[in-house]
């Protein structure tokens, strides 16, 4: 690496770091005063970019008018999100609040996609981008202005927090919310102000990333957001200095990573940094308070309730309807939709042991699903395995690989576990993309004694049988001694530990079981699509799995079937577009978490 390359990369790192720092400060600020990781913040990066593109390119507004307008819109949106979604849940169910912000971010991204289309839009050059040089390294006024603006904003923030009355109240609230309340500090106002500032900073970061990269895209928020979150964690959640430092460190690390290994290395680097921080120093570089102790118990992330009594006759009727009536009378269209419903029901039913029993809100199930799909495809395509062997084998591989990758996660709690699994899911898909950049074609269809089973009816029946086996296994597991131990970890990890149960081992086991069924589901998908590529295994897929499980009831494997029928079957029959579906998933998630936290089959207790 020559000297000019070094400065090039360093400048690229600073500019990326700049964006992450702005985002991380927002995330840290909100986490400090509300103890909630705000995923909605992630969307402001994409939204800031798109709105400023829209104002400047489409409406022809001058940039200096567009920018404040964007910040204002983001701030206002942040305020609305806080009072409608986050505040009502933050105090009692911080993890449910986090989940809701995740849903909000998916909704925002997709509304923005509907409004602005999913295209990458060329962002206008509002300031010169390569009119200056140090040695042979070229950069522009635009870059200087961005860095300068950040410096000014950070200095202003520091002064505001140190000497401003509200600023001091923000610090007091983040250090001890209850004591702040007892001093007569209006905590609600403090939280609103923090949210508004964070959202505006997020919007600004979005504008900056668009200026820097030169393109804007509605879906770009999540990756930047995740990186900004990792930056905040690296610096120490709740520490604003830490957020800035973390942002720049990560930006520079990433720039060098991309320089040496290409763009897909980005997500892997971010995930590795996250894992290293969580293991070595979960409080982050500047975290003074051991934040982990303030985390809620993982098992209490949703309200408890009593499952509705299901009359005995329902089971055989459901079996006959799904297993006989649908295959006999269903059209090909219904059967094809049915295969989707069944596959997701398998994945979601397997997930209930993690989300419901072990109380781990894992957000990256697309990862193990992708492992299963690719494993099965490779085994049958290149190694000549039969589908029937590849199916369980890919589940097994998904379980093993996901468990190994997730093994460092189990020592941490609450928000961190969710974010780490989310990052894990993204990283797995990124690695797969590195290995198979093209996607895999001509994945063999299952055969039965030489007869290819490629009709919708055949697929449906295979999926149905696998689902029944899955439900029986989940039911047996739940009633077993092991299942009860896992539930005890979810219900009260400290109490379980006091009885000699090492929670992390059982969480890992639950996750492995869920990953197994995710892998099986992935394998089924692969052989029915006969073509797979990394764009299939998106965040949306992970969100869908979580939503199905929460809608049906986190602890109920049969609930997953109902959730899947509603969320996939109904959506398909209503012919909603993909964007609209995600918006519906998001809304369902928010409403269920808020008003029926145990799921539709669980009465609130």
């Amino acid at each position: 690496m020559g000297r000019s390359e070094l400065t090039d990369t360093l400048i690229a790192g600073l500019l990326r770091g700049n964006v992450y720092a702005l985002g991380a400060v927002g995330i840290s600020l909100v986490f400090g005063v509300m103890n909630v990781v705000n995923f909605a913040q992630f969307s402001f990066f994409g939204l800031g970019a798109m709105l400023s593109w829209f104002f400047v390119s489409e409406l022809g507004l001058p940039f200096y008018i567009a920018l404040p307008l964007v910040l204002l819109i983001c701030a206002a949106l942040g305020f609305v999100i806080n009072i409608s979604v986050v505040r009502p849940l933050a105090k009692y169910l911080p993890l449910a609040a986090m989940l809701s912000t995740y849903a909000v971010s998916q909704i925002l991204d997709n509304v923005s996609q509907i409004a602005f289309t999913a295209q990458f839009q060329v962002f206008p050059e509002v300031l010169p981008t390569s009119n200056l040089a140090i040695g042979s390294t070229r950069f522009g006024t635009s870059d200087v202005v961005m860095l300068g603006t950040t410096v000014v904003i950070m200095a202003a923030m520091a002064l505001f927090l140190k000497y401003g009355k509200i600023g001091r109240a923000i610090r007091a609230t983040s250090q001890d919310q209850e004591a702040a309340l007892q001093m007569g500090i209006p905590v609600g106002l403090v939280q609103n102000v923090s949210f508004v500032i964070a959202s505006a900073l997020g919007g600004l970061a979005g504008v900056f990333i668009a200026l820097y990269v030169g393109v804007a895209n509605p879906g770009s928020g999540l990756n930047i957001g995740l990186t900004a979150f990792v930056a905040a964690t690296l610096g120490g959640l709740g520490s604003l200095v830490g957020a800035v430092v973390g942002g720049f460190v990560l930006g520079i690390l990433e720039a060098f990573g991309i320089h040496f290994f290409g763009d897909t290395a980005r997500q892997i680097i971010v995930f590795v940094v996250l894992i290293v921080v969580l293991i070595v120093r979960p409080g982050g570089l500047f975290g003074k308070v051991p934040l982990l102790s303030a985390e809620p118990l993982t098992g209490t992330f949703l309200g408890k309730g009593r499952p509705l009594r299901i009359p005995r006759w329902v089971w055989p009727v459901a079996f006959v309807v799904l297993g006989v009536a649908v295959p006999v009378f269903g059209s090909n269209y219904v059967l094809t939709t049915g295969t989707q419903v069944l596959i997701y029901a398998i994945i979601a039913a397997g997930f209930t042991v993690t989300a419901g029993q072990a109380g781990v809100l894992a957000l990256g199930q697309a990862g193990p699903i992708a492992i299963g799909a690719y494993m099965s495809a490779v085994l049958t395509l290149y190694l000549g395995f039969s589908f029937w062997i590849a199916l369980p084998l890919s589940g097994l591989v998904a379980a093993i690989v996901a468990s190994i990758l997730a093994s460092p996660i189990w020592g941490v709690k609450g928000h961190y576990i969710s974010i780490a699994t989310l990052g894990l899911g993204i990283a797995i898909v990124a690695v797969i993309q590195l290995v198979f950049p093209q996607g895999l074609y001509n994945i063999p269809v299952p055969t039965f004694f030489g007869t290819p089973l490629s009709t919708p009816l055949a697929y449906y029946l295979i999926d149905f049988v696998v689902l029944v086996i899955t439900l029986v296994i989940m039911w047996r597991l739940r009633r077993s001694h092991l299942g009860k131990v896992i539930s005890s970890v979810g219900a009260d990890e400290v109490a379980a530990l006091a009885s000699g149960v090492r929670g992390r081992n059982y969480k890992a086991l639950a996750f492995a079981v869920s990953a197994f069924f995710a892998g099986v589901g992935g394998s089924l998908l692969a052989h029915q699509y006969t073509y797979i590529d990394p764009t299939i295994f998106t965040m949306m897929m992970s969100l869908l799995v979580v939503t199905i499980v929460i809608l049906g009831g986190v602890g109920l494997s049969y609930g997953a079937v109902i959730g899947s029928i509603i969320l996939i079957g109904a959506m398909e029959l209503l012919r909603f577009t993909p964007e609209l579906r995600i918006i519906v998933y998001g809304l369902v998630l928010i409403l269920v978490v808020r008003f029926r936290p145990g799921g539709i089959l669980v009465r609130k207790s």
Partner: protein
Amino acid sequence: MTALLALDDVNVFYGPFHALRGNSLTVGEGEIVSLLGGNASGKSTTMKTILGLIKVKSGTVRFEGRDITHASTRRRVIGGIASVPEARRVFPQMTVDENLLAGAYTRSDRAGIADDLERMREHFPRLAERRRQEAGTLSGGEQQMLAFARALMSRPKLICMDEPTMGLSPKLVDQVLDEIVRINRELGVAVLFVEQQAELALSIASRGYVLATGEIVLQGTARELLDDPHIQEAYLGKANPS
């Protein structure tokens, strides 16, 4: 004469759990009153009720004759009720001065706040020495003083203290109790405080209330309570050889 603070027939529930059972108590102007009782007897719940941190199911809370049963914590602080939370709860990463300013959050008279800051530094010389130090680095006794000073910064008429002697050495406990008396005498502030050790509490309080499973089971002047055979048996007997 109406009392400064008056709780009348107050009932509080935590879900189905009946935490306060029709309790009535009063604190007069400039008075020191002690709340006694064992663990989970409802002492802290009473404090939270007075500060507006939990909802009252029925009954009224009055302050200077006004009904504040449904007023927010903030309004109560503005009205003149300050608190010294359980376990002190100073803001650990803020300086001593910043902690004091946080206590004055509800006020906007800059000159008055500056005056009071000065008064606190005179009253608590240790805090003046450590004004730029982060509160988390202070000793337990100093943190307690800071919590007192922080509460006084809102110019209260009543300070509610939840176990101000918790976790302190016997020597410091005496100091803290002396300080309560001093605040009360010199600044004329009424004090309602929770204390586990009945004898110590009643040595400075003029009156006391004894709570058991959410109910006030005994009340009276310090003398009456000290002489009460139940108290002697439950709190002053072998359990407390000092």
